[in-house]
């Protein structure tokens, strides 16, 4: 008796991967760098960023839809991932610029002079000329790549350990995650935090060592990288929630106390999922911000994390593809409506400008979804298709009875 590989037991995974591949190939074929140019480079970047947001939404769904923790701090991990990669991007690029400008000097610069020059360039804007301690590894891409997952993972681990240990749950926990995010944002807003205060890190769209490659090409590369990350993370997340582990975390979501009496260390499970989600989110952030070009502390104000929750709720939580649908649909709609391209509605005596009214519509729409479609868009699929029996356990039962 062999079990089918779990991917085959979950046809939705194959569908998602196929759609993702199709989408990426199609965008590439229409891009300016590799295809017809029907999709401008800025749009390719928007689509690439949207895939990163979808990845963050998948992680959010793991934490909220499956584990039942409404974390209002996911964007903190997202931004931390961005900051970690941004450190290297900014340092390496500034180093190249400073080295080029110092090459004109009669005497070649010492490593220390070079570093001072870089520090001056980066931190002059916040009135400092020293490289803060948190930039100790900024010169090295491999180290910063490790930090991309290590720093948010460690934060999630420490915060989660403290919060879960004292059995904070429900709205209390949500508020606490929100507070954590706010604390981090406020800390980053300071000029002496070592992250350039509210200036944030900028110029991230220029990849050091790839100076000869134009943004049109880079945008497609990042689209592929984002799609690959989303695909891998989706498979990973689906694998995690498929087996007994998935059973246990959904059980924790529904009745934590009962799971404890079954002998499962609930805190350990929560910590594992929370940390994994934080790391996935950080990877999403590390891919997002080079496409956005700039990151600043405003990105991790609590409201951003709540939006993430909104996307997942609208898409349908407890279903990984629901998270993707929610993130893609709502974020693309948002950028369309707030980008000023949506046609205004002319009423007698008043013109509805979507730039002004989109937020109102989104807010109210969100209330309506919560009230009338608690399972989100993905829940509508369930209504359309006939209810399917859960296929997996049935053969077991027959075999056992045979």
């Amino acid at each position, binding site marked *: 008796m062999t079990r089918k590989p779990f991917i085959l037991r979950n046809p939705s995974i194959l569908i998602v991967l196929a759609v993702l591949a199709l989408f990426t190939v199609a965008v590439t074929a229409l891009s300016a760098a590799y295809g017809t140019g029907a999709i401008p480079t800025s749009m390719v970047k928007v689509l690439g960023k949207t895939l990163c947001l979808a990845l963050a939404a998948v992680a959010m769904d793991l934490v909220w839809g499956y584990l039942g923790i409404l974390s209002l701090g996911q964007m903190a991990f997202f931004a931390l991932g961005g900051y970690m990669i941004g450190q290297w991007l900014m340092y390496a690029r500034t180093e190249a610029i400073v080295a080029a400008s110092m090459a004109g000097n009669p005497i070649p610069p010492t490593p220390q002079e070079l570093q001072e020059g870089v520090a001056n360039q980066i931190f002059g804007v916040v009135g400092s000329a020293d490289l803060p301690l948190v930039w100790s590894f900024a010169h090295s891409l491999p180290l910063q790549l490790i930090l991309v997952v290590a720093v948010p993972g460690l934060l999630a681990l420490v915060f989660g350990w403290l919060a879960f240990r004292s059995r904070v749950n429900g709205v209390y926990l949500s508020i606490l995650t929100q507070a954590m995010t706010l604390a981090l944002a406020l800390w980053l807003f300071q000029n002496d935090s070592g992250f350039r205060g509210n200036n944030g890190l900028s110029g991230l769209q220029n990849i050091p060592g790839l100076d000869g490659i134009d943004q049109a090409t880079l945008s497609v590369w990042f689209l592929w990288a984002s799609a690959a990350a989303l695909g891998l993370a989706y498979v990973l997340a689906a694998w995690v929630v498929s087996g007994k582990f998935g059973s246990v975390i959904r059980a924790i979501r529904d009745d934590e106390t009962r799971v404890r009496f079954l002998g499962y260390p609930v805190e350990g499970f929560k910590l594992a999922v929370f940390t994994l989600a934080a790391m996935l989110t950080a990877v999403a952030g590390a891919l997002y911000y080079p496409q956005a070009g700039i990151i600043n502390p405003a990105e991790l104000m609590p409201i951003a994390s709540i939006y993430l929750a909104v996307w997942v709720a609208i898409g349908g939580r407890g279903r990984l593809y629901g998270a993707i649908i929610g993130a893609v649909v709502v974020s693309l709609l948002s950028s369309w409506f707030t980008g000023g391209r949506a046609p205004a509605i002319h009423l007698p005596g008043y013109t509805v400008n979507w730039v002004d009214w989109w937020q109102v519509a989104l*807010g109210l729409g969100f209330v309506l979804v919560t009230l009338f479609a608690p399972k989100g868009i993905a829940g509508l699929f369930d209504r359309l298709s006939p209810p399917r029996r859960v296929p997996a356990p049935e053969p077991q039962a027959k075999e056992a009875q045979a």
Partner: protein
Amino acid sequence: MIRPLIALVLTLCLALPASANPALEAVIADNLDQIQKPSRKTVEPLVAEIAATGPEGLALLSAWAGRALGVTDDGRLLIVDGDSARDAVTGAAVPDADPKMLRPNSGVRSVIESALVAGEISSPDPARRAAALASIARDGTAGHLAALRAAPPEADPALAAQRERATNLLAIRFDPDPAARVAAIEGMAGDVGLDFRAALNPLLAVTRVASPTEPKANIARELTIGGDFPREAAIALLTANGTLQPRLTPADQRNALAANIVDGAVAGIPVAELDDPAARDRAYEALEAAGAVPPAATDAEAEAALAANRFFETYAEADRAVTDAARAAQTRAQVRLAAMTGIDLGLDALSLASIYFLAAIGLAITFGVMRVINMAHGEFIMMGAYTGYVTQTLIANRTLSLVVALPLAFAVTFAAGVLLYRLVIRHLANRPLETLLATFGVSIALQQLAKNIFGTQARPLTAPAWLEGSITVNDVISISSIRVAIFVLALLFLGLFLFIMKRTRLGLEVRAVTQNPGMSASMGINPDRIAMMTFGLGSGIAGIAGVAIGLFAQVTSELGQQYIVQSFMTVVVGGVGNIWGTLAGAALIGGLSKVIEFFNPSNTLAAQTFMILFIVIFIQFRPRGIIPQRGRAAEA
């Protein structure tokens, strides 16, 4: 400045009827020479004589000191005021005068000013004596000290105290006798006034000196390298007094090397190798040996100089007894100051706590009764503030508009709360996380709506005049009236809330529903109605908090957002379902914010960060807040 005093004297004198003053005339006639060429040493009796002749004499003196006195060719003295001039003796206007202006030196002027002040402080008019004292307190001189001491006893007790204080302060600064200065310092020890501290500071000012032997000066302490006296500071001191050659900075070194490149090498070392600090040092030493660059201090030289010298802090004030007394007085002042700063901090914390309390109380009520976090609570605060603003645009009288705005804000937000409850919250019963998100949707919609209606710029909500200004106890302790008013408002709401909960039918039913909704329903209480009422009540209080906050903060669509997180913290820290918990939470958060801010005043962002970290840790030890809900209901 003495000018206001002179101006005062001038005005007072000008008001007098012009009349001849024979005594003054005689003095002037006798001493015209000395008036024209006065000497610091001899002018004093003359000034006293003039002052004794009455108001005209005083007017003349102030004009003299103010360089507004001229002498005509025929020996008459004229007081010049802009283009007009008048006779100093008769007061009669003198048209077309072209006097030679007198320019007494500063020594003479200080003698004159002292005499004037002496005249003023013995003036029969208390207002003029007070003005004179105030003027001395602003800008006292050694001359004033003598004048104050010589003045007749002061009858008015308040003025006497002021005069005593001014005398002491001047004595600390100017008395030639060290014993008298020590006595003055000790007489004022414990005072925390800014003026006293300002008088002490110059006495205790120190300069750092480096010297192989103990210098002949009033030494405050000997410094040892390390701690607050780093090695660099010691080297800088030695460099400054010429003991040590200036140390070579990397930039100087680089420039010196760059100036000595010969055939692509410096002192035989190829330029390409000079990206190594060690190679640069070698090149520089070679240049130094060749005499091409000035010698720079080496580490060994610096070390030797440091070992050979001792470092001292010396007082500019030479007298040891004075500095000792001043230090002791300063210490006492600092201790008392710390206590008073503590009180001031307490007042600040109290007012902040009142604001958090007002902002959080509504949240606590709804959370306690329904286990529902209303994310739109901040927007209700904002609605209250905008209601206040709109009321103010309609009613010009600020007091009246405030009186109207408070109940109106309550009504508006009560209605909004009831509406929110009916339309959204009751359909999400027992789904707290969904409620949180749905109310968040309402929150962003309301925020954008406010932006669409009122624009993005801040709207003023101005307090009535009687609420402006502040209550000042002394230089340290003061609190603005608005904050006092908010504190009173918070107390009122605490009282009102307690009254509703403990003395009314509604309160009884609310408590019943909080403790056991099922049982309450079976006893004929309609939990739905109770929930609606409490939600409305909580929202209404948010509206009132909004008006209060709007009085001192800018009214923008983001007003609520600034308070919502702190409000959540207050509820979480305090514990739900108990007004005292909210109060304790608000007090803790308000107090702690102020304390953290006090230790790190330049950085409110860091203060908030630490605040939140504290709360996360606090929750570890009291997961259910300071005052937890009790009984089996809490277990659910």
